[in-house]
């Protein structure tokens, strides 16, 4: 009974109820208002402008009901409320469903959200992979298929954002020796705004689905009659607030909260990657927000941003029409670098774990650190390579081809430095290390299939084909999924104080890596042979039926392996055995503290007195308590 009471009165449940009520009230109010003004509100599954308004305001409803704004409202009234730490007299587990300012709690909240959303996105993928396993339409029609793959895309993206936020939030502050983020309340806001964003996004599936893919190119997105598109656009948009706020928070935290003696080039390498990703996240997210708003506005208000040719009277006067390629520029200006936001933290995890498991210093620390920044910078000026076939002038395409190829250089530096770290290293193959090696191999697949898409001549054949699907999944699995799993296994004993089963972890790895290789390479192969992306069916004339079946089998294998991981982790929580504080022999600050970490990470300020990765050097220390540093 108490448990039920705690759940019902939690911020999560209150927020969801608040959001539902707000959405209902605003929607009904708007419909009545529009009826009174003489608009027709009976077209479509729901009245679109009213739905947009209801969705936007419902987010505020959620946040108010969940209590995210409580402290800020007090501040408006002239109070200065202190930060509330701890479970507020409730059991500890309720911290994860209530608004909590502790960065570790928020990190774990993000992690759970990420896994839940990952399972949902994976389920959708499995449904349409079963459809594609054979030529011919079996159990889905065009609209259902289009909704499923569009939802798979954006749901996975939300999952990835939660995943990197989990890693950055949990690890960022403790790795630099801080007690928390710079802005703990803003941090909580970042997490909690992503929940109503997700519900708005998922509501797209109930209000009619949408068939635009996650890119939502006009003029298809501005004219489609599948009304879920609005909820998709808004959900995507609102999730952007979360990205911007958490990016900003991490940047400021890194600048001002580092422990004494921790110069930028003595930070754990993951922090470099996290900061590079955070800078991108805090800035470029705005442009996709604008692009999405523009589509929403064109649909709901009639602002003609993307309608190519206007009426003759206006043209004769010299009035310009809209342009559908404008959207593509604004969208990819964000969405290409966004891929680097997703993979940089993952690449950081690879660089972080390699020295620990090879017992050797990270080869070329500064080069790896700066290559993260380099990837972020170069990655920001390559967006139009998604538009090589869009009808852009040739003179615009060529500079983008050149800048795209240059991404290979910082990425290459990372790869070579990893190999040099492993060379002559005394490697141990615990589960996290296996996933790191898997990540390197899979990211290599993604990396090597990149340049062929970057040169325009070959991209003309491969653009929008299944080759791109294979390439994209390889970069994201290699750059995010495998490192994320490596991170989960690696920091699990630190975060929970319990150890998972190595045997099950290795089983997970040995199913997932071959499964992914088969899936990705076969996707690329079918793409070269002529399979388009985003199609509900393909002809037997392409001769790719066997390959398609193989992809489906591989997808199922990956799905099962992830279930094994979840089983492994959940079972470990019930184990009686406590994990040792530093099972991997790491030098990183978080392993200097007990497991799980205390509320404020350390008993007191710490101080950096050496290099972070001096494995193999006797008498070298990285961090000590400031009180023991003796100065």
């Amino acid at each position, binding site marked *: 009974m108490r448990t039920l009471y705690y759940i019902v009165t939690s911020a999560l449940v209150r927020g969801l109820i608040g959001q539902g009520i707000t959405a209902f009230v605003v929607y009904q109010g708007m419909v009545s208002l529009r009826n009174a003004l003489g608009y027709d509100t009976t077209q479509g599954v729901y009245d679109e402008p009213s739905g947009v308004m209801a969705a936007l305001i419902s987010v505020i409803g959620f946040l108010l009901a969940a209590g995210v704004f409580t402290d800020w409202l007090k501040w408006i009234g002239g109070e200065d409320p202190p930060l509330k730490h701890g479970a507020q007299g409730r059991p500890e587990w309720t911290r994860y469903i209530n608004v909590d300012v502790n960065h570790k709690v928020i990190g774990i909240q993000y992690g759970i959200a990420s896994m839940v959303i990952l399972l949902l996105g994976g389920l959708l993928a499995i449904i349409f992979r079963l459809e594609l396993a054979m030529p011919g339409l079996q159990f889905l029609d065009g609209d259902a298929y289009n909704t499923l793959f569009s939802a798979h895309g954006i749901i996975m993206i939300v999952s990835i954002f939660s995943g990197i936020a989990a890693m950055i939030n949990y690890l960022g502050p403790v790795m630099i020796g801080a007690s928390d983020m710079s802005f703990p309340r803003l941090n909580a806001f970042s997490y909690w705004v992503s929940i109503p964003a997700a519900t708005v996004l998922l509501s797209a599936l109930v209000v009619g689905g949408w068939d635009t893919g996650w890119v939502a190119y006009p003029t298809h997105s501005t004219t489609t009659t599948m009304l879920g598109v609005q909820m998709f656009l808004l959900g995507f948009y609102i999730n952007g607030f979360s990205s911007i706020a958490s990016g900003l928070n991490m940047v400021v935290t890194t600048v001002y909260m580092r422990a004494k003696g921790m110069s930028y080039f003595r930070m754990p390498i993951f922090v470099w990657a996290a900061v590079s990703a955070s800078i991108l996240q805090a800035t470029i997210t705005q442009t996709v927000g604008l692009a999405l708003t523009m589509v929403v506005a064109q649909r709901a208000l009639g602002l003609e941003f993307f309608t190519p040719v206007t009426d003759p009277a206006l043209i004769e006067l010299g009035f310009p029409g809209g342009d559908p390629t404008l959207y593509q520029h604004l969208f990819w200006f964000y969405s290409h670098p966004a891929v680097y936001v997703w993979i940089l933290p993952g690449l950081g995890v690879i660089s972080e774990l390699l020295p620990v498991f090879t017992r050797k*210093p990270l080869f070329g620390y500064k080069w790896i650190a700066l290559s993260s920044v380099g990837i972020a910078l170069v990655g920001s000026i390559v967006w139009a390579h998604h538009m090589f076939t869009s009808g852009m002038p040739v003179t615009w395409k060529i500079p983008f081809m050149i800048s795209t190829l240059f991404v290979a250089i910082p990425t290459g530096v990372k790869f070579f430095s990893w190999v040099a770290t492993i060379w002559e290293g005394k490697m141990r193959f615990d589960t996290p290390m296996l996933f790191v090696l898997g990540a*390197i191999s899979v990211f290599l697949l993604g990396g090597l299939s990149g340049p062929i898409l970057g040169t325009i001549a070959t991209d003309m054949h491969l*653009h929008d084909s299944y080759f791109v699907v294979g390439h994209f999944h390889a970069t994201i699995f290699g750059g995010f999924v495998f490192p994320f799993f490596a991170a989960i296994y690696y920091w699990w004993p630190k975060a929970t104080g319990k150890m998972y089963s190595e045997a099950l972890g290795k089983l997970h790895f040995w199913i997932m890596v071959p499964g992914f290789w088969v899936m990705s390479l076969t996707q690329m192969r079918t793409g070269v042979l002529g399979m388009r992306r985003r199609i509900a069916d393909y002809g037997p004339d392409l001769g790719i039926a066997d390959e398609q079946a193989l992809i489906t089998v591989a997808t199922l294998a990956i799905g099962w392996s992830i279930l094994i991981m979840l089983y492994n982790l959940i079972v470990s929580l019930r184990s009686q055995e406590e994990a040792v504080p530093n099972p991997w022999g790491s030098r990183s600050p978080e392993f200097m503290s007990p497991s799980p970490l205390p509320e404020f990470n350390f008993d007191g300020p710490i101080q950096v007195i050496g290099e972070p990765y001096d494995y193999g050097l006797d008498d070298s220390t990285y961090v000590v308590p400031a009180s023991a540093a003796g100065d």
Partner: protein
Amino acid sequence: MGSRTRHFAIITVLIAVSTVVVYFLINLYLFERPFGASAEASQIETMFQAHFILMGFLFAIIVVPLGYAIVVFRQKEGDDTDAPHIHGNTTLEIVWTIIPVLIVVGFAIWGSFFYWDLVSANEGEVEIRVQGYKWDWTFYYPEHSVPGEPPRQDQTLVVETGQPVVLTMQANDVIHAFWVPQFRVKQDVVPYNIAIRSDNGDRQVIDLSFANPNYEEAAEAFNYSPQEVRIIPDQPGVYRLRCAEICGTQHWAMLANVIVLDTDDYQAWVNGELTLPADPNFANGTPDTEGYYLDELKAFCDEQEFSGVNCESEY
């Protein structure tokens, strides 16, 4: 021979061998290309080969040392000591930055000229207009039309061997994309004529459509330049045009036949003496697999005596 030198000698040999093996695997099996039916296809094949060689080499240079280190240097049973303390080597870092820079610059310069060459106008090219709409394609042949009358149109793209063609494209609803894998070219097809509110609040549509008999004047007046792509078809056969940009419910079924004919057959088609296979479009009928039309195409191939490879490999 020191152990370090021995290790490097072994991996050098392994890298060389792996590069060759991986290149052949990619080229002959993994990334098998569809039959090439245009001059562009053979041209682009050079670029594919260059990339495959690069892929093979880069794959080998990362995976071979990685695998070798895993096998040779792994922690031995009962050894708890750390590995040697090697924290970096600036010369090495500079080398593996500069060499990729050189490769990238080379590829960028070569790729730019290559692409420029690929899309430049060919001598004596004729225009065929391609219109994409939900969910089918129509082709207009101004070459075979009478001025002032509605242009000649067909649901099949028919081109002549060796005759350079410039395909100009427009969509009249949403963005579609023109892709014939055997030609190796792809081009988005962008909409042109959705009207907006005019003074009295109505919506108007101006006719910049290829179907307009006065298309040329209209295009000139409104400064309208449609998307274009150039091909020189060189292998007779039947191929499929597939829409490559998501465009709604039946995007997957937005297909058209592309038929490359030699000069005699092409003339026969111009004169209306050649019957073409049906248009594989399901937008107005029951969606079915493309297989339904394959027998018909096969029969057409046999009848035309198309050299086996293009028709056999297709169906």
